[in-house]
C-alpha cells in the first residue's frame, strides 16, 4: 500500500459550556444595556481598565470604583480580516480594532464598521491609526459585547 492510500478519519467535536460572568462582568453588561461603557479604576495604580476587572492584574488588589468612560476613542491598531475560519461569528470581511476609549488606560477590542468594507483601498482612506471612532449601539440589547454594534469613524 502506498502512502497516499493510508486512511484518514474525519471527526468533529462539539462541547457545550455555561460560563459564569461573575459580578463585575455582569454589571458591565447591565451598563451596556443603558448604553454606558464602564471601566474600573485601580485605587493603587489609578489605571482605568475596560473591560473592567474585579482586581488589578498588576497590583493584585481589589478594584471597587466604577468609572464611566467615553464612547469615543482612538484607534491604536486595526486589522482587515479577510480570512474565513471555523465558527467565526462575524462574516468576513470585517475590521477588528484596538480602541483606546477616552478616559481609559487599556485598549478595547471591538470592530470598526458602518463603512463600505468591500474595497480595501477605500477602507484605508477611512480607517487610520490614531483616527477617532465612536460607538454605535444595537437597538436590541442582548447582554453581550455586540450590544455595542460597532465603532464608526468620526468624520
Amino acid at each position, binding site marked *: 500500500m502506498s502512502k497516499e492510500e493510508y486512511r484518514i478519519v474525519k471527526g468533529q467535536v462539539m462541547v457545550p459550556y455555561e460560563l459564569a460572568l461573575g459580578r463585575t462582568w455582569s454589571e458591565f453588561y447591565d451598563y451596556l444595556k443603558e448604553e454606558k461603557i464602564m471601566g474600573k479604576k485601580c485605587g493603587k495604580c489609578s489605571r482605568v481598565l475596560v473591560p473592567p476587572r474585579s482586581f488589578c492584574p498588576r497590583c493584585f488588589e481589589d478594584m471597587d470604583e466604577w468609572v464611566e468612560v467615553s464612547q469615543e476613542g482612538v484607534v491604536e*491598531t486595526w486589522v482587515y480580516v479577510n480570512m474565513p475560519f471555523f465558527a467565526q461569528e462575524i462574516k468576513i470581511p470585517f475590521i477588528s480594532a484596538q480602541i483606546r476609549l477616552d478616559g481609559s488606560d487599556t485598549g478595547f477590542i471591538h470592530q470598526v464598521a458602518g463603512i463600505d468594507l468591500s474595497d480595501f483601498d477605500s477602507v484605508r482612506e477611512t480607517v487610520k491609526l490614531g483616527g477617532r471612532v465612536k460607538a454605535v449601539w444595537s437597538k436590541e440589547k442582548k447582554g453581550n459585547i455586540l450590544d455595542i454594534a460597532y465603532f464608526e469613524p468620526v468624520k
Partner: protein
Amino acid sequence: MGKAVAIIGTGQTKHGRRSDVCYPDLVKEAVSAALMDAGITLKDIDGVVLGTMPSMMEGVSSTHFYFAEAMGAVGKPVMKVETCGSTGQSIGHCGFFWVASGMADIVLVVGSEKMSEGDGQATMTTVFDPFFQRTFAAGAPGVFTMQSMEWMYRFKIPEEKGREAAAMISVSNHDNAMDNPYAHIRTRVTMDDVKNARVITYPVRLLDVCPASDGACAVVFASERTAKKICKKPAWIKGLGFRGEEFFYGESDKAIWMSATEAAKEAYQQAGIRNPMKQLDVAELYNPFTYQEMIFYECFGFCPRGEAPDYVLKGAFKKGGQLPCCPSGGTLCTNPIGATGLIRLAEAALQVTGKAGARQVEGAKLALSHAMGGVDQFNAVTILGSKL
C-alpha cells in the same frame, strides 16, 4: 546559581504534512532520533516531559496518555506542561528544572503537533475569552497584524520600508530552510514573490506567514556529571526566562512588548550577557510572522527600538551577518506549534555543538532560542553555550 544542566541529544521528525503516520508514531520518530543522538536507551531516562497545543488542536485531550508508549514513558514519571505557543520552550525549562532539582539525572522532553489534523485558527480563536474578545478574534494572523501595525505606527516606520524589510526576512528564512533537511517549506522565494503574494490580513501576505506543519521534536537533558561522562559535546544551559502579560489583548503595550523584553533580560542576566548583539553568535527566534520577527530583534536588544528594519535592510541578521537569525529557516518555514519552541532549542543546541550541518553558523558558541505564546501574551527565552 544552582546545578549545571546540559542538552546531550536532540531529535526531530521530517516536518510537513505527515499523513503517512498516525500521531503517536510521529512522536516516536522524534524520540528515537533523540535517543540515538544522545547514545542512550529508554532505560536511561528518569522522567519524561510532554507538551502539545490544547485538545482543541489535538482532537484528543491530555495527550500524555495517548503518547505513553510513543514517548517512552511507561513506568516512568511524567510532566505535562503547556503554555500555548511557548509550550516548546516551557517544556525545555521543565526539563532543565527537573534535572537541576536533583530529582532526575536524565530527562526526555517531547513536543509535538499535527496541524494538518485540526483547525489551527479556530483553536487560536478559543484562546480569546468568550465574554469580550472572541467575537472579534481573527486567529493568529489578525492579532499579529494588529501588533505589527501598532509597532510601525509608534516608531514612524514608513509602510514601504516595513514592507521591504519584512520581505527580506521572508526571503532569507526561505533561503535558510533550503539548508535544513527537516524544514517543511523548502522553496526559494524572491522579494517580488513576497510582495505580490495573496493578502491574508493587510499588510501581511501569504509569504509573511508560517505554514501549518506536522512535526515533533525531542531533547535529552542531563546533569553535569552525566553529561561530562557520556556526551562529547554537550550544549550547556546558560540562562532562561519566561514572562507573561495580562490576558486581555489591548491591556499592555505590544509595540514595546514587556514579556519578550523581560524574558530576555532575565535569561541574559543569568547568562552574563550585557551586549547581546556582540556576545550572541546565533539566534533561533519564534517567528511565525515576518513583521513580528523585527519586534523581537528590538525586544531582545539586538537593535534600538524602531530601527529593526534598518538593520534588516543592512543584512545584519542574515547568514553571514552580524547576528544570524533562524539559520534553520525558522518558524516561518516550519510550525508544528507544540514542537516549535523545542525545535528552536534543539537548533540552538546543534549550533553551539557544531552539529548543524549545512545550516551551521561557523564557530557558534553562544545561542539564543525563543518561543512566544497565547495572544501575544507569553515569551520564553533560553540561552545555550558550548562551554560550562
